[in-house]
């Protein structure tokens, strides 16, 4: 499965969600499929996308928050899995695209290439719903199940280590940040 195909498969569902992505290929690929004001791309601060998602999910319990994370980023903030589990925001779905590689900086292997299991670590941290999927159909079904379950889920999607030719897009970082905040603040406070 290619990450771009996986994002494309859920792009329609993301229209009704608050989406936070990591930097690099994930951000560039989601933008290539169509930017929306409810998408925020954390273009640095590796590891913190899930923490930003948690801050949003706790502050906006009526919003459905989706974090599009990566193996390299999760490995930089493993403690964050325990914090997610501790607060168990039921409105947060944590997708981890695991290409077993730091693709955007030369493709060096991460520890998932030698067996470290992010879904296993998430489960051990206490995240109630976890899964690892390897095909597009399984990914789409698991993502829909996560949204329907209304509980904190870490969904690891094993994807090929391929990405876009470049990572810089024409969307300014601050343009994205202020547009996203304005959208988020306009949402209702309670379900």
């Amino acid at each position: 499965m290619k990450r771009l195909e996986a994002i494309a498969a859920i792009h329609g569902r993301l229209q009704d969600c608050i989406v936070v992505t990591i930097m690099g290929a994930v951000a560039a690929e989601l933008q290539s499929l169509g930017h929306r004001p409810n998408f925020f791309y954390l273009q640095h601060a590796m590891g913190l996308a899930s923490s930003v998602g948690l801050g949003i999910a706790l502050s906006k319990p009526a919003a459905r928050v989706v974090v599009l994370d990566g193996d390299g980023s999760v490995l930089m903030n493993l403690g964050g899995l325990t914090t997610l589990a501790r607060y168990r925001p039921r409105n947060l779905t944590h997708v981890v695209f695991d290409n077993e590689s730091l693709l955007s900086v030369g493709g060096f292997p991460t520890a998932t290439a030698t067996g470290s299991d992010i879904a296993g670590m998430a489960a051990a941290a206490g995240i109630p719903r976890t899964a690892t999927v390897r095909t597009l159909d399984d990914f789409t079904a698991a993502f829909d199940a996560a949204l329907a379950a209304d509980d904190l889920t870490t969904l690891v999607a094993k994807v090929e280590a391929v990405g876009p030719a470049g990572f810089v897009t024409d969307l300014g970082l601050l343009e994205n940040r202020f547009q996203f905040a304005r959208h988020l603040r306009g949402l209702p406070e309670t379900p």
Partner: protein
Amino acid sequence: MPVSVDASRIIYDALKACGVSVVSALPETWLVHLIRMAEDDPDMTLVRLAKEEEGVGISTGAHLAGARSVMLMQNHGFLQSINGIVSCAQLYRIPLVMLISHRGWFGERDPWQTEGGLVTIPVLDALRIPYETLDARDHVAHRIAKAMTLAHSTNRPVALLLGRDLMWEDG
């Protein structure tokens, strides 16, 4: 424990008066009462962190969603958080308000705190983060309110250093 409950209450009440509704924290001795106050307050969302840098993300998410927040941490936690402060809060112009216990400074008895104490202010200066010290009860509320105002007018991080003379009752 000679950490001042009264001073902690003054700080906590000042945060509440500024509309703070989210506190992320990693415990340290001087912060125990503040964290318990947040824990006991049904209107406060307390996020207990595994490592301080996560708090930068929590505060960023809270701010984008329209909530006021602060981070409570020791200065070693501030040092631990620097990448998040630079590449999240500064890059994305987030009004991150940090209350940092200034350990390892004048009066410190614990040798292990001293290196962090020496570099805290130089690092704040290097990061161009404005700061004031809270070291007497009568200016706490005023300085917290001003810090919150500056953070939100600049959309940048602002720090308040919690000093020994305020937090510790036996000097």
